[in-house]
């Protein structure tokens, strides 16, 4: 099967700093890949390259076999939720559709529908300022998903949350995974999160980043937090920590 998303020998230098040094990545359709690496390694840069937001100095990025050189083909969720305080929750969710020229009414209707499907309709008219961190993340994810693009790139979507809320959101993401029906690339610095959510974990080295390890995660689904105490999980975790260089 043709891969959904391919990066081949991607090199990026920004402001004289060599960030990506020939990164290769292939993501099969419908798979969930987690990218982990030391902080500042260039995970976000790689994601922006995959989103078409950043043009690599050398190397190519392809989506469905076609070279990807401009944004707009995949859905991208940046690190902070970036909810607009002047828009209600439903208007924030519909932002992406409105930005691409969908008539406002249609966009709002679809956003309302999405909020209902994800069980958030009671917050539709609220201001995002009034929401908790966890709710804000859900709304931001919904905004990304509503674009209906078949590939989601998520840059540490739960990075700013406290440990407990993060757990809840991870469970939530597992729960809505089928609803999203998309190929997902998730950047995280949390090894547990990567193993819990992904079909494959790709470890990047420190800057300039290369792929240090490409680890399939063959843990059974549906996954729950309970998984984290099993031996298989712990073994995979040890491999990842070793590749990250934090475990001897």
């Amino acid at each position, binding site marked *: 099967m043709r891969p959904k998303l391919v990066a081949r020998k991607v090199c990026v230098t920004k402001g004289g700093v060599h960030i990506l040094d020939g990164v290769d990545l292939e993501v099969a359709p419908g798979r969930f890949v987690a990218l982990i690496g030391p902080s500042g390694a260039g995970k976000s840069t790689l994601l*922006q390259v995959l*989103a*078409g*937001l950043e043009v690599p100095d050398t190397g190519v990025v392809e989506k469905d076999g076609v070279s990807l050189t*401009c*944004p*707009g083909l*995949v*859905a*991208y969720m*940046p*690190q*902070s939720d*970036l909810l*607009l*305080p*002047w828009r209600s929750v439903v208007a924030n969710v519909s*932002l*992406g559709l*409105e*930005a*691409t*020229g969908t008539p406002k009414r249609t966009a709002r209707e679809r956003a309302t529908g999405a909020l209902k499907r994800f069980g958030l309709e009671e917050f539709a008219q609220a*201001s995002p*300022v009034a929401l908790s961190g966890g709710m804000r993340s859900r709304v931001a994810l919904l905004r990304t998903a509503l*674009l209906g693009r078949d590939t989601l790139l998520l840059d540490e979507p739960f990075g700013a949350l406290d440990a407990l809320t993060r757990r809840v959101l991870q469970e939530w993401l597992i729960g809505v995974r089928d609803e999203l029906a998309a190929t997902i690339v998730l950047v995280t610095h949390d090894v547990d999160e990567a193993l819990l959510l992904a079909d494959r974990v790709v470890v990047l080295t420190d800057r300039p980043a290369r792929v240090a390890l490409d680890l399939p995660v063959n843990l059974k689904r549906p996954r729950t937090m309970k998984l984290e105490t099993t031996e298989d999980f712990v073994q995979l975790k040890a491999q990842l920590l070793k590749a990250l260089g934090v475990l001897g």
Partner: protein
Amino acid sequence: MRRALPAALLAFSVLLGWELIVRLLDIPAFLLPGPVAVAEAFWKSRGLLLEHAVPTAGEALVGFFCAAVAGILFGLLINRSSLAERSLYPWLVVSQTLPIIAVAPILVTWFGYGPAPKVMVVTLFCFFPITVATVDGLRDIDPDLIRLMRSFSASRWRTFWMVEVPGVLPFLFGGVRLAVTYCVIGAVIGEWVGSSEGLGFLMIQDKAQFEIPRPRLFAEIALLSVMGVSLFLFVALTQRFLAPWTLKRDR
């Protein structure tokens, strides 16, 4: 209403104290008239005062409007072009260091006694805070937000209207509130230098004469202040109506 109470109480006590001091120390009216005398003077000349308030308010408003348009345009230009920032911005700063009271007579010589030079003085006096606010506000917009809009493949025009315009409002309203308090002063300065109508003109007249018009001079000052405060309140109300989120502490 209840929030205005402390300010009203303070004003009342100051006026009361002022009246008492004037009466107890028997201060002559040409030095310092008491508030009661000022109010009397206002009431006696109310027709004349309001008649002259109209051109002053007009000049202040038109000048303020021009300042807002010019300020926002300069701000946009400086934000969009680094060439404009390096060439234009320093000269805008220089324009603010010119003593307006010295520039005004030149403008009157060039453009006559009509309202035009007053409007120019007001514009010159008011545009700068609006320019600075626009520049700072646009600079403050999260680059990640612009990147998010790019990831949607939004056009620059949509990004401008959906993100940059609302995003600049908190700063812009700060600048506008500052500018609107200056505009009445600007109009009066313009009128002082050369005019045949307006509260500034009337003040010059009253100042030149002795004795009788002194309380009226104070009434004119009070009227100008009322004008300035009304404009400020109008801007504050507009902000509450147009951009309520800018008033929340946690935006």
